[in-house]
């Protein structure tokens, strides 16, 4: 909502500067986004009177105008077609700063010689003054403007651009803002006069109004003005409308818009001659009805949309837009003026359905007061008589089936303190509410007030609303900050969150970079993580109104986001990339909200160890990723096992399933399937890791203490040869099954010429230790021998 300060001053003599007023409004809830100033830079531009206009001696289209601007007469060259004797114009003297729309720069006016004649100044167009884009001719000022007056005094203004919150439709008006400023500054508001002369013809004789749907139309007021003359509205009105962003059309339409901006009540004017039935019926639209609106678009109305009809057909969509057929035209001679009040939900619904939002619907949607309609109707009727002539019929129509009774609201001094935390005395509360137009009553000397909201406010329903009114006028800066003193609720750590954040930290410790990618994705992306381009996992949840096709589904996997990030970064990163994300995936469930499971996914590509003067470069390998998985298990205190994976996303034979202690698969890792690598345009030997964190135990990791072992450990190395198909896990299980074995470490794995074909050699270091005595050599030798023979019996192992 744009508020020109000159216009505002018609209703309130504010004593503060526009900047201070803006600050007050902002602090009290009506945010001023910006202040536009007009005319601040009009130095050396004054009102000039054109004394004489003669042809230019050397040009057909230029003329010489002599201008008096308070001092001596100055003759200038002028090319504008509308310059003539005796008009008042904005005159720029030498040294004035003007706006050049072509170069978009300011220029300082210098004496100029045009075709042999020197100009010591210039008559300006609106564009040169920066008022509008109009450059068809020079600007013509009111005749009563005294020559020599600085133009800034005459036309300079500040325009406040306000952001009105949805609860304050009354502030979508100049008078509404004047009322706010009145409460904030103490200056009084004076409203314009609504008095006009009525003719002897009763309005009922010429028009009747019926509200067929009183649940959707609360009030309908109308006046009738005959014998008017449609013409452009006066310059000042057109200028104000333009400043507020509304295009001037003709005097009648402009007046309805002007009063809407003034009071916040939308009005509509019908060409009375087009309402041939002499009847207005407000009702819901019938199936199949259409109307061509003022913007010349035919609209199909849905059943129940509220319409203004002439008894037969719709002539306007109530509260949204009028019909083209009954619009005011140059030949209109009688005007039926409407000021009504409609159900806000209904208007909002209709405007959304038709995708047709107007200044009127904006106000009705926000539930303007039912009491403003007759006030605004009178004001508009008076302005029409004043500016377009004609006679107003006697009386106005006012159909108001269910009048809203004003209910007083009780506010106690104690309640103000209970909510605001500061003491405000009853007199102050009373004064604040009075300044906002509330009727206040303080019965029986109790520290409480009964307050009736002013008729223009629809947002005050209970004591909490009154508390806010008091707080915002007294000023939020009067609230003294205080730390919370109430009882501290008991708290328990959420194991799910603690474990998840622990994993995040561990991965960072392992050198991985965290990323955060969008939860929304496309079907193509989800299919790209399958080598066959088919969807892996459940059908994703679909959006009804996606912003773009790339954000149509809720992701069921983190991998598309990670692989896309990997691919994007490979374009400019030479170094290795190790990325992870811990976020939710969204899985449908029947009869309940979807599952939003925490997932971990990571991708790896490039060199694990970069080329360095001390180290040779090494690419990522399966066991690098496994090391990270084992570290995660270690840090979160969970037991996991591994088995060969058949997951379609992994390179066959080069991936593992991660199995928890109850045998449930909780994740996978390994080399990415080459088809998927191709889908995402990433390097072939990249690796991925995925763990479903929702399958981790929901308990905090338990830490156990063991007393330090005081007895020395004995170390024995052992190299065995087994068939290739014997797994390390099988050997480990046998060795660790022996008591006194305290540790097992594989330190070499060999296949090649030194061992028979189809076999491999494994070298282990076994640690023996007892917790209650020092082991003897023979004791250790005996177990060591037993281990070797058991490996021989069960796995066919031989010593190397």
């Amino acid at each position, binding site marked *: 909502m744009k508020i020109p300060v000159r216009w505002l001053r018609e209703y309130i003599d504010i004593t503060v500067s526009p900047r201070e007023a803006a600050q007050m409004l902002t602090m009290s809830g009506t945010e001023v986004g910006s202040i536009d100033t007009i005319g601040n830079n009009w130095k050396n531009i004054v009102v000039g009177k054109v004394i004489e206009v003669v042809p230019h001696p050397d040009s057909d289209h230029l003329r010489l105008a002599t201008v008096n601007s308070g001092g001596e007469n100055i003759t200038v060259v002028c090319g504008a077609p509308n310059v003539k004797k005796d008009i008042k114009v904005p005159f720029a003297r030498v040294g004035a700063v003007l706006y050049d729309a072509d170069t978009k720069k300011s220029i300082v006016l210098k004496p100029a010689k045009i075709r042999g004649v020197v100009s010591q100044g210039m008559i300006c167009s609106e564009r040169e003054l920066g008022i509008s884009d109009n450059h068809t001719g020079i600007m013509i000022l009111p005749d009563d403007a005294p020559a020599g007056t600085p133009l800034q005094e005459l036309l300079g203004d500040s325009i406040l651009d306000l952001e009105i919150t949805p609860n304050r439709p009354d502030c979508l008006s100049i008078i509404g803002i004047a009322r706010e400023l009145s409460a904030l500054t103490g200056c009084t508001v004076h409203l314009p006069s609504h008095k006009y002369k009525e003719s002897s013809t009763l309005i009922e004789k010429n028009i009747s109004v019926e509200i067929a749907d009183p649940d959707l139309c609360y009030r309908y007021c109308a006046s009738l003005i005959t014998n008017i003359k449609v013409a452009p509205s006066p310059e000042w009105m057109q200028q104000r409308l333009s400043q507020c962003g509304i295009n001037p059309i003709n005097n009648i339409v402009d007046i309805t818009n002007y009063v809407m901006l003034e009071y916040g009540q939308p009005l509509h004017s019908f060409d009375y001659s087009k309402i041939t039935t002499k009847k207005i019926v407000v009702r819901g639209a019938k199936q199949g009805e259409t109307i061509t609106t003022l913007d010349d678009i035919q609209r199909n109305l849905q059943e129940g949309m509220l319409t203004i009809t002439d008894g037969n057909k719709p002539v306007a969509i109530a509260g949204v837009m009028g019909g083209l057929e009954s619009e005011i035209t140059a030949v209109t001679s009688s005007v039926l003026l409407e000021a009504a009040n409609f159900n806000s939900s209904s208007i909002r619904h209709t405007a959304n359905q038709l995708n047709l939002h107007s200044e009127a619907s904006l106000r009705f949607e926000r539930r303007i007061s039912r009491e403003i309609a007759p006030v605004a109707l009178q004001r508009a009727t008076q302005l029409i008589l004043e500016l377009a002539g004609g006679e107003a019929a006697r009386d106005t129509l006012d159909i108001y089936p269910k009048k809203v009774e004003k209910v007083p609201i009780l506010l106690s001094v104690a309640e103000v303190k209970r909510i605001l935390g500061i003491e405000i005395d009853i007199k102050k509360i009373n004064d604040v509410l009075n300044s906002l137009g509330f009727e206040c009553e303080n019965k029986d000397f109790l520290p409480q007030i009964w307050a009736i909201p002013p008729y223009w406010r629809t947002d005050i329903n209970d004591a909490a609303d009154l508390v806010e009114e008091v707080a915002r006028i007294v000023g939020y800066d009067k609230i003294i900050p205080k730390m919370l003193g109430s009882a501290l609720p008991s708290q328990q750590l959420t194991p799910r969150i603690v474990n998840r954040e622990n994993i995040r930290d561990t991965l960072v410790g392992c050198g991985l970079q965290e990323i955060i990618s969008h939860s929304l994705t496309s079907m193509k992306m989800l299919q790209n993580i399958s080598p066959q381009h088919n969807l892996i996992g459940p059908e994703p949840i679909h959006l009804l109104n996606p912003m773009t096709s790339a954000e149509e589904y809720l992701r069921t996997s983190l991998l598309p986001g990670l692989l896309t990030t990997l691919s994007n970064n490979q374009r400019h990163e030479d170094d290795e990339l190790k990325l992870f994300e811990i976020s939710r995936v969204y899985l449908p469930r029947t009869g309940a909200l979807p599952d939003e499971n925490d997932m971990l996914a990571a991708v790896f590509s490039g060199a694990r160890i970069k080329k*360095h003067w001390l180290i040779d470069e090494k690419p990522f390998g399966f066991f690098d990723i496994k090391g990270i998985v084992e570290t995660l298990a270690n840090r979160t205190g969970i037991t996991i096992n591994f088995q060969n994976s058949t997951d379609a996303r992994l390179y066959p034979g080069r991936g593992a399933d991660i199995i928890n202690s109850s045998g449930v698969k909780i994740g996978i890792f390994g080399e990415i399937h080459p088809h998927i690598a191709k889908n995402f345009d990433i390097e072939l030997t990249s690796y991925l890791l995925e763990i479903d964190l929702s399958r981790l135990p929901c308990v905090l990791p338990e830490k156990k203490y063991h007393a330090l072992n005081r007895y020395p450990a004995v170390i024995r190395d052992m190299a065995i040869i087994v068939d290739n198909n014997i797994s390390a896990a099988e050997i480990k299980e046998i060795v660790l099954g022996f008591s006194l074995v305290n540790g097992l470490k594989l330190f070499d794995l060999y296949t090649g010429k030194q061992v028979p074909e189809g076999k491999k050699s494994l070298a282990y270091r076994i640690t023996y230790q007892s917790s209650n005595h020092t082991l003897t050599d023979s004791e250790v030798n005996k177990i060591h021998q037993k281990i070797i023979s058991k490996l021989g019996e069960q796995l066919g192992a031989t010593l190397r």
Partner: protein
Amino acid sequence: METQLQSLREDALASLEAITNMESLNEWRVQYLGRKSSLNQILRSLKELPPDERQKNGALANQIKNLLKNKLQEKTGQIEELTLKDSLKQQTLDVTLPGKPIDIGRLHPLTQTIREICNIFGSMGFETIEGPEIEQDYYNFEALNIPEDHPARDMFATMWTDYRVGDDPNNLLLRTHTSPMQIRIMEKRRPPIRVIVPGRVYRYEASDATHESMFHQIEGLAVSENITLAELKGTLFEFASRLFGSNRKARFRCDYFPFVEPGVEMAIECIVCNGAGCSLCHNTGWIEILGGGMVHPNVLKRVGYDPAVYSGFAFGMGIERIPMLKYGIEDIRLFCGNDMRFLRQF
């Protein structure tokens, strides 16, 4: 024999003098003090001498032996010292060569910010909880005092899913704010309540430098007896001072959110111009950080709390905005863009 011993002593001391390294010193030790040395032979031949000769020469020989031993020790020390000095001179490292790289990853700047904010509120007694992103209309709007067709719904352009639950006639939506968790937590617990809720939220909005269809918020809620606007101000001013520094001024102004009354917007003094006015703060000198207010009595009633007994405050803030302000990041899309050149800076 005596002259033989004396000349032996002279020889030994003279040759020791010339020695500068360990090898030669070792040879010298073998020559003069070894088992086959002339001194040792003399000592062994002493028993063949008459007793008085034996005693006189024996004393002299032992004296010479001790002298040589002492000199040997002394020389050993000198040579060791010299060698060390030498080696200290030779082994000068080029300390400007690059060290062995240690791989350390980083948390995403938003994770860092969320943790920082949760820690600040955690120290004021707020427990971190989380909630669903795919929500019911009831929690996202209805229970928060925003019924269907309420104009405040324009503040929350919503994305809807094709998903329905049970006999709820409304489709599920992507939560437009973290505020639904106010209702969920109050339904589940009784006062006193003090929680914060970080998480993703969604808006039906075209993305540009300051808008994304997905972003992060943190919601705060405290409900108890005797909670006032003064405590909201105290809590949030303390938060602002810890996050932006104690010198940065903060202010409260009136604002409107349907689920609070009175409503509040908190701003801090502009980080770029320190209040003088610049393009970042649209010449106001202030930057909006969060919205909040006293929990609306209708909301309390909705969850079965008596608004005459309990009061509380709630607030919510966008998370991306915080690092954008702190580090002067001009484009919100960088956060989900995950360019390593961006992420590495945090």
